[in-house]
């Protein structure tokens, strides 16, 4: 980092690469999707770049990096869940109405199970539990160790993907 602060671009690039390797598992453990990990990792690297003058090279580097990473992660999760909770209100209505649509159009879970399996693993499991095994969103949340709103959001995303595929 000292070399980086002195303007050594190669050392700086290497430091950022090493930092991203170090942070990836930290983020993967806390986020559900790889795309989220990528987005947040980019944001953290930009933050490290912006704040690099606050590191003088005389104290351990990791606590400084993790302080920034945790800050950005909290920000991200706060915004993410606030956004998803807004959707969750509408989703409860959607969830109630969806089975009716399925029967009206004579689409059963079995008939689209092939498409469901192509969904990301978590979404597929949620749909399977809710529509094949008859669990409620709350029960699925408990079973998967997730928040109820997060289950509804994941289900909503899955419905959207399925709808666009079936409409084609």
């Amino acid at each position, binding site marked *: 980092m000292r070399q980086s602060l002195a303007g050594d671009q190669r050392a700086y*690039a290497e430091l950022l690469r090493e930092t991203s390797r170090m942070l990836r598992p930290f983020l993967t453990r806390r986020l559900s999707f790889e795309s989220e990990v990528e987005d947040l990792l980019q944001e953290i690297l930009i933050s490290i770049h912006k704040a690099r003058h606050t590191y003088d090279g005389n104290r351990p580097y990791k606590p400084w990096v993790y302080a920034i990473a945790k800050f950005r992660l909290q920000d991200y999760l706060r915004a993410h869940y606030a956004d998803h909770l807004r959707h969750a209100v509408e989703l409860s209505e959607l969830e109630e109405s969806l089975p009716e649509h399925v029967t009206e159009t004579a689409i059963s879970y079995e008939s689209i199970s092939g498409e469901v399996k192509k969904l990301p693993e978590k979404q597929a499991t949620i749909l399977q539990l809710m529509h094949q095994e008859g669990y409620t969103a709350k029960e699925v949340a408990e079973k998967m160790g997730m928040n109820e709103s997060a289950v509804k959001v994941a289900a909503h995303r899955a419905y959207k993907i399925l709808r666009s595929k079936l409409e084609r």
Partner: protein
Amino acid sequence: MENIDDLINQLAQDAKAVKPAPHPYMLSLKWMGAAAAYLMLSLVFSGLRPDIALKLHQPWFVIEIATLGGVFVATSLSAALLSFPDMHQMRRLVFAPVVSFVLFVLVIILAWQADSPPAPLPVHSFECTISITLAALLPAVWTFYAMRKFASTHTHWAGSIALLSAFSVGALWLRLHEVNDSIRHVVEWHYLPMIACGLAGLWLGKKILKW
């Protein structure tokens, strides 16, 4: 992964030599020096209370001023540490204002008990709060401006501590300027509003110190 590599290359190309931020001790000393100079200038222009020589012989007044000064020093140091993402890895010192504040409250409680018979209440009331706010405005703006150059990861607390620091300057100024012996008035119109402004700093910090 490709995006990350591209980003790293871009950031590395953009990386010019940067001057590391000063140590938080130096930073807080700078802020304290500036605030002390501002306080002295304010007192030169507004004038010291005429009975200051007498008041400086009253232990509770001296202790009150000393502990209020302690709050100012502790909050300045804490604000400087909170400006760094990792608090310069001196987490314990960040809590220094808690100690100074507990001491200050204790002194105020004891001074209140010692104020017997109670000194008469002055005729004015909220004017003191306004005066303190006006006096604290410049230190607050300056502290926030200085803190924005860093990268706080505790924006709520940083804002609160910065405002407490600025308002302690205002409170010190008024206590050394105004002829008033009523501890009840001082608590109601000087120190409680100061704490309220510190709480408002929780919100302000989030807004201003965002990066």
